[in-house]
Protein backbone atom coordinates (compact mmCIF):
# COMPACT_ATOMS: atom_id res chain seq x y z
CA UNK A 1 0.00 0.00 0.00
CA UNK A 2 2.69 2.47 1.00
CA UNK A 3 4.62 1.77 -2.18
CA UNK A 4 1.59 2.69 -4.31
CA UNK A 5 1.07 5.85 -2.26
CA UNK A 6 4.74 6.78 -2.50
CA UNK A 7 4.77 6.24 -6.24
CA UNK A 8 1.68 8.40 -6.81
CA UNK A 9 2.77 11.20 -4.49
CA UNK A 10 6.33 11.46 -5.77
CA UNK A 11 5.38 10.87 -9.38
CA UNK A 12 2.48 13.32 -9.51
CA UNK A 13 2.40 15.71 -6.59
CA UNK A 14 5.64 16.46 -4.80
CA UNK A 15 9.20 16.77 -5.97
CA UNK A 16 11.92 15.50 -3.68
CA UNK A 17 15.48 14.86 -4.73
CA UNK A 18 15.66 11.51 -2.90
CA UNK A 19 12.25 9.89 -2.47
CA UNK A 20 13.88 6.78 -1.01
CA UNK A 21 15.22 8.75 1.95
CA UNK A 22 11.80 10.30 2.66
CA UNK A 23 10.63 8.40 5.73
CA UNK A 24 7.11 7.11 6.35
CA UNK A 25 6.75 9.53 9.26
CA UNK A 26 8.04 12.60 7.47
CA UNK A 27 5.65 15.54 7.06
CA UNK A 28 4.03 15.52 3.61
CA UNK A 29 2.39 18.90 4.18
CA UNK A 30 5.79 20.43 4.92
CA UNK A 31 7.11 18.73 1.83
CA UNK A 32 4.57 20.57 -0.31
CA UNK A 33 1.37 18.54 -0.39
CA UNK A 34 -1.19 21.29 -1.06
CA UNK A 35 -4.98 21.37 -1.12
CA UNK A 36 -5.33 20.33 -4.76
CA UNK A 37 -2.78 17.57 -4.14
CA UNK A 38 -4.78 16.27 -1.18
CA UNK A 39 -7.93 16.16 -3.29
CA UNK A 40 -6.19 14.25 -6.06
CA UNK A 41 -4.57 11.93 -3.52
CA UNK A 42 -7.94 11.21 -1.92
CA UNK A 43 -9.42 10.27 -5.28
CA UNK A 44 -6.40 8.10 -6.05
CA UNK A 45 -6.81 6.27 -2.74
CA UNK A 46 -10.54 5.69 -3.30
CA UNK A 47 -9.93 4.34 -6.78
CA UNK A 48 -6.87 2.24 -5.98
CA UNK A 49 -7.86 0.77 -2.62
CA UNK A 50 -11.63 0.60 -3.10
CA UNK A 51 -12.52 2.68 -0.06
CA UNK A 52 -14.76 5.70 0.45
CA UNK A 53 -13.14 8.41 2.51
CA UNK A 54 -15.63 10.79 4.17
CA UNK A 55 -15.02 14.44 3.28
CA UNK A 56 -15.01 15.50 6.91
CA UNK A 57 -12.05 13.21 7.55
CA UNK A 58 -9.87 14.97 4.97
CA UNK A 59 -7.79 16.75 7.55
CA UNK A 60 -4.08 17.24 8.37
CA UNK A 61 -3.95 14.42 10.93
CA UNK A 62 -4.95 11.86 8.32
CA UNK A 63 -2.79 12.97 5.41
CA UNK A 64 0.34 14.26 7.16
CA UNK A 65 2.56 11.22 6.56
CA UNK A 66 2.60 7.85 4.80
CA UNK A 67 2.00 6.11 8.11
CA UNK A 68 -1.03 8.30 8.87
CA UNK A 69 -2.38 7.72 5.38
CA UNK A 70 -2.04 3.97 5.81
CA UNK A 71 -3.89 4.04 9.13
CA UNK A 72 -6.63 6.19 7.64
CA UNK A 73 -7.12 3.91 4.65
CA UNK A 74 -7.08 0.73 6.78
CA UNK A 75 -9.78 2.17 9.02
CA UNK A 76 -12.10 2.26 6.01
CA UNK A 77 -11.17 -1.07 4.48
CA UNK A 78 -13.71 -3.78 5.21
Amino acid at each position, binding site marked *: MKEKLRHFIFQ*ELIYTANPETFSDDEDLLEAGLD*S*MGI*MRLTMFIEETFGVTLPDEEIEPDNVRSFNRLKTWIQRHQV
Partner: protein
Amino acid sequence: MASCKTDMRAVPLNPADYFTLVMDNEIRKAGLSGSYGGIVLELDSKPDFEALEVRVAEFQSRFPLCRSRLTKQGKRYYWQEPTKDEKILHLHHLSSRDGSAPRLKEIMNLRQPLDTTVPLEFHVFCQPGRHRFFIRWLHPLCDAGGAGLILKFLLTDSLQERQQFNDDDSPIQSYLDRWSLWEKIGFFIKGKRHINGIDRLKSTLPVDDVVVPEQLDFKVVRFSRQQTEVIDQLARKQVGMAAKSLYYIGCFMRAIAMTGPAVEGDAYCIPYAFNLRKQKAVSPVFGNQVSVLFAQVPTDLVENRNNMFKYLKQQYVEAVRNKTDLAFLPVMLAGSWLSIERYGQVLRNQSRHGTERSSFWFSDIGEIDFAAADFFGSVVDGVFHLSPVTSPPSLSLLLGKFDQKLVMTYNYLIPQVDSGWLGILQKNMTSELLGETR
Protein backbone atom coordinates in the same frame (compact mmCIF):
# COMPACT_ATOMS: atom_id res chain seq x y z
CA MET B 1 6.66 23.66 -24.13
CA ALA B 2 9.61 21.83 -25.59
CA SER B 3 12.88 21.74 -23.76
CA CYS B 4 14.83 25.00 -23.69
CA LYS B 5 18.43 24.53 -24.77
CA THR B 6 21.15 27.07 -25.24
CA ASP B 7 21.18 26.26 -28.98
CA MET B 8 17.45 26.87 -29.33
CA ARG B 9 16.13 27.81 -32.76
CA ALA B 10 12.34 27.52 -32.81
CA VAL B 11 10.54 26.16 -29.77
CA PRO B 12 6.86 25.23 -30.18
CA LEU B 13 4.19 26.26 -27.67
CA ASN B 14 2.45 23.63 -25.58
CA PRO B 15 -1.41 23.38 -25.58
CA ALA B 16 -1.78 25.47 -22.40
CA ASP B 17 0.58 28.13 -23.81
CA TYR B 18 -1.85 28.34 -26.75
CA PHE B 19 -4.72 28.86 -24.34
CA THR B 20 -2.97 31.94 -22.92
CA LEU B 21 -2.07 33.10 -26.43
CA VAL B 22 -5.78 33.11 -27.30
CA MET B 23 -6.42 35.34 -24.30
CA ASP B 24 -3.50 37.56 -25.32
CA ASN B 25 -5.14 37.92 -28.74
CA GLU B 26 -8.50 38.85 -27.19
CA ILE B 27 -6.88 41.42 -24.89
CA ARG B 28 -4.98 43.00 -27.77
CA LYS B 29 -8.09 43.08 -29.96
CA ALA B 30 -9.80 45.12 -27.23
CA GLY B 31 -7.02 47.72 -27.67
CA LEU B 32 -5.19 46.71 -24.49
CA SER B 33 -1.58 45.63 -23.93
CA GLY B 34 -1.67 41.81 -23.96
CA SER B 35 -1.66 38.86 -21.61
CA TYR B 36 1.16 39.66 -19.23
CA GLY B 37 1.69 38.37 -15.74
CA GLY B 38 3.39 40.37 -13.01
CA ILE B 39 4.94 39.69 -9.61
CA VAL B 40 5.93 42.64 -7.43
CA LEU B 41 8.24 42.42 -4.42
CA GLU B 42 8.07 45.32 -2.00
CA LEU B 43 11.50 46.05 -0.54
CA ASP B 44 12.66 48.05 2.46
CA SER B 45 15.79 49.39 0.71
CA LYS B 46 17.55 49.47 -2.63
CA PRO B 47 18.78 45.98 -3.54
CA ASP B 48 22.37 45.33 -4.60
CA PHE B 49 21.80 46.07 -8.27
CA GLU B 50 25.24 44.92 -9.45
CA ALA B 51 24.76 41.49 -7.84
CA LEU B 52 21.28 41.26 -9.35
CA GLU B 53 22.71 42.15 -12.80
CA VAL B 54 25.20 39.27 -12.55
CA ARG B 55 22.47 36.78 -11.57
CA VAL B 56 20.14 37.98 -14.33
CA ALA B 57 22.97 37.63 -16.88
CA GLU B 58 23.49 34.05 -15.72
CA PHE B 59 19.76 33.39 -16.06
CA GLN B 60 19.69 34.82 -19.60
CA SER B 61 22.61 32.69 -20.60
CA ARG B 62 21.09 29.51 -19.13
CA PHE B 63 17.62 30.19 -20.51
CA PRO B 64 17.83 32.10 -23.81
CA LEU B 65 14.13 31.44 -24.30
CA CYS B 66 13.50 34.36 -21.92
CA ARG B 67 14.66 36.83 -24.57
CA SER B 68 13.17 35.10 -27.61
CA ARG B 69 10.31 36.34 -29.80
CA LEU B 70 7.00 34.76 -30.57
CA THR B 71 6.74 34.11 -34.29
CA LYS B 72 4.04 32.60 -36.44
CA GLN B 73 4.73 29.94 -39.03
CA GLY B 74 1.54 28.96 -40.82
CA LYS B 75 -1.09 28.56 -38.10
CA ARG B 76 1.47 27.65 -35.44
CA TYR B 77 3.45 29.83 -33.07
CA TYR B 78 7.07 29.34 -31.97
CA TRP B 79 9.61 31.01 -29.74
CA GLN B 80 12.36 32.18 -32.06
CA GLU B 81 15.94 32.57 -30.95
CA PRO B 82 16.98 36.23 -30.69
CA THR B 83 19.71 37.47 -32.99
CA LYS B 84 21.15 39.94 -30.50
CA ASP B 85 21.50 40.28 -26.75
CA GLU B 86 18.56 41.90 -25.03
CA LYS B 87 18.51 44.03 -21.95
CA ILE B 88 15.91 42.49 -19.72
CA LEU B 89 16.83 44.18 -16.42
CA HIS B 90 15.83 47.83 -16.05
CA LEU B 91 16.54 50.28 -13.23
CA HIS B 92 14.11 53.14 -12.64
CA HIS B 93 14.98 56.06 -10.35
CA LEU B 94 11.78 57.81 -9.35
CA SER B 95 11.63 61.10 -7.48
CA SER B 96 8.12 60.87 -6.06
CA ARG B 97 7.19 58.64 -3.13
CA ASP B 98 4.34 57.11 -5.13
CA GLY B 99 6.24 56.94 -8.38
CA SER B 100 6.42 53.18 -8.79
CA ALA B 101 2.67 52.50 -8.88
CA PRO B 102 2.06 54.67 -11.99
CA ARG B 103 5.21 53.23 -13.59
CA LEU B 104 4.01 49.69 -12.88
CA LYS B 105 0.68 50.48 -14.54
CA GLU B 106 2.50 52.09 -17.44
CA ILE B 107 4.58 48.94 -18.04
CA MET B 108 1.61 46.60 -17.65
CA ASN B 109 -0.34 48.75 -20.12
CA LEU B 110 2.45 49.21 -22.65
CA ARG B 111 1.20 48.27 -26.13
CA GLN B 112 3.83 46.51 -28.20
CA PRO B 113 3.40 44.20 -31.18
CA LEU B 114 3.47 40.57 -30.11
CA ASP B 115 6.36 39.70 -32.41
CA THR B 116 8.66 42.38 -30.98
CA THR B 117 7.82 41.88 -27.30
CA VAL B 118 10.57 40.59 -25.00
CA PRO B 119 8.69 37.88 -23.09
CA LEU B 120 10.46 38.43 -19.75
CA GLU B 121 11.52 41.68 -18.10
CA PHE B 122 12.84 42.60 -14.67
CA HIS B 123 12.40 46.12 -13.28
CA VAL B 124 13.84 47.68 -10.13
CA PHE B 125 12.07 50.83 -8.93
CA CYS B 126 13.94 53.09 -6.51
CA GLN B 127 12.04 55.93 -4.93
CA PRO B 128 12.14 57.76 -1.61
CA GLY B 129 11.07 55.41 1.16
CA ARG B 130 10.04 52.53 -1.07
CA HIS B 131 11.65 50.11 -3.49
CA ARG B 132 10.14 47.46 -5.68
CA PHE B 133 11.28 44.59 -7.85
CA PHE B 134 8.90 43.70 -10.65
CA ILE B 135 8.87 40.71 -12.98
CA ARG B 136 6.69 41.01 -16.07
CA TRP B 137 6.25 38.03 -18.34
CA LEU B 138 4.27 37.39 -21.48
CA HIS B 139 1.86 34.66 -20.51
CA PRO B 140 2.55 32.12 -23.22
CA LEU B 141 6.12 31.98 -21.84
CA CYS B 142 5.19 30.56 -18.44
CA ASP B 143 2.55 30.45 -15.72
CA ALA B 144 2.76 32.08 -12.29
CA GLY B 145 4.44 28.91 -10.96
CA GLY B 146 7.19 29.31 -13.57
CA ALA B 147 7.58 32.99 -12.73
CA GLY B 148 7.95 31.93 -9.10
CA LEU B 149 10.76 29.59 -10.17
CA ILE B 150 12.50 32.41 -12.07
CA LEU B 151 12.39 34.45 -8.88
CA LYS B 152 13.66 31.48 -6.91
CA PHE B 153 16.55 31.04 -9.35
CA LEU B 154 17.56 34.68 -8.89
CA LEU B 155 17.48 34.23 -5.12
CA THR B 156 19.36 30.94 -4.92
CA ASP B 157 22.90 31.62 -3.75
CA SER B 158 24.37 28.18 -4.35
CA LEU B 159 25.56 27.63 -7.94
CA GLN B 160 25.07 23.90 -7.52
CA GLU B 161 21.42 24.46 -6.57
CA ARG B 162 20.90 26.93 -9.43
CA GLN B 163 22.15 24.30 -11.84
CA GLN B 164 19.24 22.09 -10.87
CA PHE B 165 16.79 24.52 -12.50
CA ASN B 166 16.06 23.37 -16.01
CA ASP B 167 13.35 23.10 -18.58
CA ASP B 168 12.86 19.38 -18.85
CA ASP B 169 9.97 17.15 -17.84
CA SER B 170 6.97 19.26 -18.74
CA PRO B 171 4.06 17.82 -16.67
CA ILE B 172 1.54 18.80 -19.33
CA GLN B 173 3.53 16.95 -21.97
CA SER B 174 3.99 13.98 -19.68
CA TYR B 175 0.20 13.65 -19.22
CA LEU B 176 -0.43 13.94 -22.93
CA ASP B 177 2.35 11.46 -23.75
CA ARG B 178 1.12 8.81 -21.35
CA TRP B 179 -2.37 8.71 -22.88
CA SER B 180 -3.01 6.67 -26.02
CA LEU B 181 -4.84 8.33 -28.89
CA TRP B 182 -8.12 6.74 -27.77
CA GLU B 183 -7.61 7.83 -24.18
CA LYS B 184 -7.01 11.38 -25.43
CA ILE B 185 -10.18 11.21 -27.50
CA GLY B 186 -12.08 9.85 -24.49
CA PHE B 187 -10.85 12.73 -22.31
CA PHE B 188 -11.57 15.21 -25.09
CA ILE B 189 -15.20 14.06 -25.33
CA LYS B 190 -15.53 14.14 -21.55
CA GLY B 191 -14.05 17.67 -21.47
CA LYS B 192 -16.31 18.96 -24.24
CA ARG B 193 -19.40 17.43 -22.61
CA HIS B 194 -18.44 19.06 -19.33
CA ILE B 195 -18.05 22.46 -20.99
CA ASN B 196 -21.34 22.05 -22.87
CA GLY B 197 -23.01 21.26 -19.53
CA ILE B 198 -21.51 24.40 -17.99
CA ASP B 199 -22.68 26.46 -20.98
CA ARG B 200 -26.35 25.55 -20.44
CA LEU B 201 -26.38 28.40 -17.94
CA LYS B 202 -25.55 31.87 -19.18
CA SER B 203 -22.82 33.49 -17.13
CA THR B 204 -23.32 36.58 -15.02
CA LEU B 205 -20.81 39.32 -15.84
CA PRO B 206 -19.70 42.10 -13.51
CA VAL B 207 -19.57 44.70 -16.31
CA ASP B 208 -21.00 45.03 -19.79
CA ASP B 209 -18.90 45.83 -22.82
CA VAL B 210 -20.88 48.93 -23.83
CA VAL B 211 -18.07 51.02 -22.37
CA VAL B 212 -14.78 50.59 -24.21
CA PRO B 213 -11.89 49.57 -21.92
CA GLU B 214 -8.92 51.93 -21.86
CA GLN B 215 -6.43 50.33 -19.53
CA LEU B 216 -5.71 47.93 -16.71
CA ASP B 217 -5.70 49.21 -13.15
CA PHE B 218 -5.17 47.33 -9.92
CA LYS B 219 -5.76 47.55 -6.20
CA VAL B 220 -3.86 45.56 -3.59
CA VAL B 221 -5.65 44.50 -0.41
CA ARG B 222 -3.63 43.10 2.48
CA PHE B 223 -4.96 41.15 5.42
CA SER B 224 -3.34 40.90 8.85
CA ARG B 225 -2.07 37.59 10.19
CA GLN B 226 -5.03 37.43 12.55
CA GLN B 227 -7.55 38.07 9.75
CA THR B 228 -5.80 35.46 7.61
CA GLU B 229 -6.18 32.90 10.41
CA VAL B 230 -9.91 33.66 10.65
CA ILE B 231 -10.28 33.29 6.88
CA ASP B 232 -8.34 30.00 6.91
CA GLN B 233 -10.55 28.59 9.66
CA LEU B 234 -13.73 29.61 7.85
CA ALA B 235 -12.43 28.17 4.58
CA ARG B 236 -11.71 24.88 6.27
CA LYS B 237 -15.14 24.81 7.86
CA GLN B 238 -16.99 25.65 4.64
CA VAL B 239 -15.09 23.66 2.01
CA GLY B 240 -12.50 21.57 3.84
CA MET B 241 -8.74 21.67 3.60
CA ALA B 242 -8.66 20.13 0.13
CA ALA B 243 -10.68 22.79 -1.64
CA LYS B 244 -9.61 26.08 -0.09
CA SER B 245 -9.60 28.08 -3.32
CA LEU B 246 -13.34 27.47 -3.55
CA TYR B 247 -13.81 29.55 -0.42
CA TYR B 248 -12.30 32.61 -2.08
CA ILE B 249 -14.21 31.95 -5.31
CA GLY B 250 -17.54 31.52 -3.50
CA CYS B 251 -16.98 34.65 -1.40
CA PHE B 252 -16.20 36.63 -4.53
CA MET B 253 -19.34 35.36 -6.30
CA ARG B 254 -21.40 36.53 -3.35
CA ALA B 255 -19.57 39.86 -3.13
CA ILE B 256 -20.35 40.56 -6.81
CA ALA B 257 -23.97 39.50 -6.32
CA MET B 258 -24.29 41.91 -3.38
CA THR B 259 -22.56 44.74 -5.25
CA GLY B 260 -24.72 44.28 -8.33
CA PRO B 261 -23.37 42.83 -11.58
CA ALA B 262 -24.05 44.68 -14.84
CA VAL B 263 -25.17 41.56 -16.71
CA GLU B 264 -27.40 39.19 -14.72
CA GLY B 265 -27.05 35.65 -16.03
CA ASP B 266 -28.23 32.24 -14.86
CA ALA B 267 -25.05 31.42 -12.96
CA TYR B 268 -21.63 32.54 -11.85
CA CYS B 269 -18.95 30.62 -13.72
CA ILE B 270 -15.27 30.75 -12.91
CA PRO B 271 -12.72 28.77 -14.88
CA TYR B 272 -9.61 28.48 -12.76
CA ALA B 273 -6.22 27.14 -13.63
CA PHE B 274 -5.06 24.04 -11.85
CA ASN B 275 -1.28 23.74 -11.88
CA LEU B 276 0.20 20.34 -12.77
CA ARG B 277 3.69 21.23 -11.55
CA LYS B 278 5.00 19.08 -8.72
CA GLN B 279 5.27 21.01 -5.49
CA LYS B 280 8.89 22.00 -4.65
CA ALA B 281 10.13 21.02 -8.13
CA VAL B 282 12.49 23.53 -9.77
CA SER B 283 11.71 22.33 -13.26
CA PRO B 284 10.31 23.13 -15.80
CA VAL B 285 10.86 26.87 -15.57
CA PHE B 286 8.90 27.67 -18.74
CA GLY B 287 5.60 26.64 -20.24
CA ASN B 288 2.08 26.94 -18.84
CA GLN B 289 1.70 23.67 -16.94
CA VAL B 290 -1.97 24.01 -16.17
CA SER B 291 -5.31 22.44 -16.79
CA VAL B 292 -8.62 24.16 -16.11
CA LEU B 293 -11.48 23.48 -13.73
CA PHE B 294 -14.83 25.25 -13.63
CA ALA B 295 -16.62 26.50 -10.55
CA GLN B 296 -20.22 27.27 -11.47
CA VAL B 297 -23.10 28.15 -9.17
CA PRO B 298 -26.66 29.04 -10.28
CA THR B 299 -27.49 32.63 -9.31
CA ASP B 300 -30.28 31.74 -6.85
CA LEU B 301 -27.94 29.41 -4.93
CA VAL B 302 -25.39 32.19 -4.38
CA GLU B 303 -27.87 33.88 -2.03
CA ASN B 304 -27.42 31.19 0.63
CA ARG B 305 -23.82 31.01 1.83
CA ASN B 306 -23.89 27.50 3.27
CA ASN B 307 -25.80 25.98 0.38
CA MET B 308 -23.51 27.67 -2.10
CA PHE B 309 -20.37 26.23 -0.52
CA LYS B 310 -21.96 22.78 -0.25
CA TYR B 311 -22.78 22.95 -3.96
CA LEU B 312 -19.31 24.19 -4.94
CA LYS B 313 -17.61 21.48 -2.95
CA GLN B 314 -19.78 18.72 -4.35
CA GLN B 315 -19.14 19.95 -7.87
CA TYR B 316 -15.40 19.98 -7.23
CA VAL B 317 -15.31 16.48 -5.73
CA GLU B 318 -17.26 15.14 -8.72
CA ALA B 319 -14.94 16.92 -11.17
CA VAL B 320 -11.82 15.39 -9.61
CA ARG B 321 -13.50 11.99 -9.19
CA ASN B 322 -14.56 11.96 -12.86
CA LYS B 323 -11.13 13.25 -13.92
CA THR B 324 -12.63 16.26 -15.65
CA ASP B 325 -9.73 18.18 -14.08
CA LEU B 326 -7.44 16.55 -16.63
CA ALA B 327 -9.99 16.43 -19.45
CA PHE B 328 -9.28 19.99 -20.45
CA LEU B 329 -5.75 19.03 -21.57
CA PRO B 330 -6.82 17.18 -24.76
CA VAL B 331 -9.39 19.92 -25.37
CA MET B 332 -6.59 22.50 -25.30
CA LEU B 333 -4.43 20.19 -27.44
CA ALA B 334 -7.16 19.90 -30.08
CA GLY B 335 -7.82 23.63 -29.92
CA SER B 336 -4.19 24.47 -30.52
CA TRP B 337 -4.59 23.29 -34.12
CA LEU B 338 -7.27 25.93 -34.76
CA SER B 339 -6.57 29.55 -35.63
CA ILE B 340 -6.45 31.54 -32.41
CA GLU B 341 -9.63 33.44 -33.35
CA ARG B 342 -11.53 30.17 -33.90
CA TYR B 343 -10.05 28.71 -30.71
CA GLY B 344 -11.49 31.63 -28.76
CA GLN B 345 -14.94 31.18 -30.30
CA VAL B 346 -14.98 27.42 -29.70
CA LEU B 347 -13.27 27.05 -26.34
CA ARG B 348 -13.35 30.37 -24.53
CA ASN B 349 -16.89 31.59 -25.19
CA GLN B 350 -20.14 30.00 -24.12
CA SER B 351 -21.09 27.54 -26.86
CA ARG B 352 -24.82 28.32 -26.79
CA HIS B 353 -24.71 32.07 -26.34
CA GLY B 354 -21.35 33.03 -27.87
CA THR B 355 -20.75 35.27 -24.87
CA GLU B 356 -18.00 35.33 -22.26
CA ARG B 357 -18.01 32.27 -19.99
CA SER B 358 -15.94 33.72 -17.12
CA SER B 359 -17.77 35.81 -14.55
CA PHE B 360 -14.29 36.84 -13.42
CA TRP B 361 -10.76 35.52 -13.66
CA PHE B 362 -9.27 33.92 -10.60
CA SER B 363 -5.91 32.62 -9.51
CA ASP B 364 -4.74 31.39 -6.12
CA ILE B 365 -0.95 31.37 -6.11
CA GLY B 366 -0.85 29.90 -2.61
CA GLU B 367 2.02 30.32 -0.17
CA ILE B 368 4.82 32.42 -1.65
CA ASP B 369 8.19 31.26 -0.41
CA PHE B 370 11.62 32.38 -1.51
CA ALA B 371 14.94 30.64 -1.52
CA ALA B 372 16.43 33.48 0.55
CA ALA B 373 15.35 35.59 3.49
CA ASP B 374 16.17 38.77 1.62
CA PHE B 375 16.27 40.09 -1.94
CA PHE B 376 19.89 41.03 -2.76
CA GLY B 377 20.34 42.68 0.63
CA SER B 378 16.82 44.15 0.95
CA VAL B 379 14.12 42.84 3.23
CA VAL B 380 10.96 41.77 1.36
CA ASP B 381 7.99 43.48 3.06
CA GLY B 382 5.28 42.25 0.74
CA VAL B 383 4.43 40.54 -2.53
CA PHE B 384 1.54 40.87 -4.93
CA HIS B 385 0.58 39.68 -8.41
CA LEU B 386 -0.80 41.40 -11.49
CA SER B 387 -2.71 40.12 -14.48
CA PRO B 388 -4.51 41.76 -17.40
CA VAL B 389 -7.92 40.42 -18.25
CA THR B 390 -10.18 40.21 -21.29
CA SER B 391 -13.16 42.52 -21.76
CA PRO B 392 -15.55 41.23 -20.46
CA PRO B 393 -15.33 40.07 -17.66
CA SER B 394 -12.84 42.95 -17.11
CA LEU B 395 -12.14 41.83 -13.55
CA SER B 396 -9.69 39.35 -12.08
CA LEU B 397 -8.82 38.41 -8.53
CA LEU B 398 -5.36 37.12 -7.66
CA LEU B 399 -4.52 35.74 -4.25
CA GLY B 400 -1.38 34.70 -2.50
CA LYS B 401 -0.07 34.33 0.99
CA PHE B 402 3.17 35.90 2.12
CA ASP B 403 4.52 35.81 5.68
CA GLN B 404 1.28 34.04 6.72
CA LYS B 405 -0.74 37.02 5.54
CA LEU B 406 -3.28 36.91 2.72
CA VAL B 407 -2.77 39.43 -0.06
CA MET B 408 -5.29 39.98 -2.85
CA THR B 409 -4.96 42.01 -6.01
CA TYR B 410 -8.03 43.25 -7.84
CA ASN B 411 -7.09 43.71 -11.49
CA TYR B 412 -9.72 45.54 -13.52
CA LEU B 413 -10.28 47.46 -16.70
CA ILE B 414 -11.13 51.13 -16.51
CA PRO B 415 -13.47 52.86 -17.13
CA GLN B 416 -15.64 49.71 -17.34
CA VAL B 417 -15.08 49.11 -13.63
CA ASP B 418 -15.46 52.36 -11.77
CA SER B 419 -13.75 53.07 -8.48
CA GLY B 420 -17.02 53.51 -6.55
CA TRP B 421 -18.33 50.08 -7.58
CA LEU B 422 -14.95 48.50 -6.89
CA GLY B 423 -14.81 50.07 -3.42
CA ILE B 424 -18.18 48.52 -2.52
CA LEU B 425 -17.14 45.19 -4.04
CA GLN B 426 -13.94 45.18 -2.01
CA LYS B 427 -15.83 45.95 1.21
CA ASN B 428 -18.35 43.19 0.47
CA MET B 429 -15.57 40.73 -0.32
CA THR B 430 -13.76 41.44 2.95
CA SER B 431 -17.01 40.93 4.90
CA GLU B 432 -17.62 37.66 3.04
CA LEU B 433 -14.12 36.35 3.67
CA LEU B 434 -14.34 37.17 7.36
CA GLY B 435 -17.75 35.51 7.64
CA GLU B 436 -19.55 38.69 8.60
CA THR B 437 -22.52 37.97 6.32
CA ARG B 438 -25.12 35.23 6.23
